[in-house]
């Protein structure tokens, strides 16, 4: 299997998911701010809400797939960084994104 082609498909597919997620996310922020919701009121809506947890899990996973693939091109073009060391660094970066993102998503759910 040609790995770069697979990465390209993964990046395009995750971009499509992100387009929806970012729109919903921004609309939610605007709604919360316009409505004058307090932090407590927001937490009331998110705690125990499986729908929001599912939405932000998808969002975080899409970011985890999308960002490291883009960073991979930047590593090649700006730093000339190729090979295993780069791939390990990107895998660690993906893990960091997933951990931070899921920590936040679970933080407002639990």
């Amino acid at each position, binding site marked *: *299997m*040609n790995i*770069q*082609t*697979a990465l*390209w498909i993964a990046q395009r597919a995750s971009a499509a998911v992100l387009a929806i997620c970012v729109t919903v996310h921004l609309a939610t922020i605007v709604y919360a701010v316009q409505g004058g919701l307090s932090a407590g009121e927001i937490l009331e809506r998110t705690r125990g809400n499986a729908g929001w947890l599912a939405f932000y899990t998808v969002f975080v996973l899409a970011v985890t797939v999308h960002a490291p693939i883009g960073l991979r091109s930047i590593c*090649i*073009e*700006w730093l000339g960084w190729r090979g295993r060391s780069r791939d390990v660094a990107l895998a660690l970066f993906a893990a960091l994104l997933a951990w931070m993102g899921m920590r936040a998503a679970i933080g407002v759910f639990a």
Partner: protein
Amino acid sequence: MKVFVKRDSGFQEFEVPRHPSQTVLDVVTYIQRELDPALAYRYACRVGMCGSCAMTVNGVPRWTCRTHVDKVVREDALEIAPLKNLPVIRDLVTDMREFFDKWARARGQFAGERTKRDDFHKVKPSSSDRVQVDSNIECIGCGVCYAACDVVAWNPDYLGPAALNRAWTLVKDERDSLKAERLRAVAGDAGCHSCHTHMSCTERCPKHLSPTAGIAGLKRETAKALLKGEL
């Protein structure tokens, strides 16, 4: 007009008379014939067919034989340099070997299956595949797109717009028998997936072709081949 020509030692200034319908190639030829016979430059057909006279004119890669001075002159001055992204042999002459080697690396050779004993393979001009490459097959291999491409500058392995455009015309050529192999050659970090769709190649192509569209087509075809398990 003042003409600043890039020599091996730096830019050299020449004074060249203006004429109606004068091309940039006329200017370079005047300098070599009247002012400095040692100036090295390359041209052949002078009518926009051979693709050998491309240079950087006022910072922009152009075919010089069909670029009128009137259109590019700024404050009665011209700056002429060799094409970017290619090694310079001398003065305005670049080494095109890497450029054309990349056509070969992109499997830019046609591979038919018929012999001289077979009848001609008739390609319908209206067929979908043929229509998609109608303009792309007009490439003259001048190297302007390659010199204009940011990705080539950043990633020297990148095959570049012209080689990928060539591969695209063959991927869409129903007579060709090397499709899978060619898609493997153009997939990856050196191939179509590195294109950022800046469209500098399409912007600068003197034949008004769109290598960008061809590269996008290669991305689609490689993705389809991967999903079918052929890549």
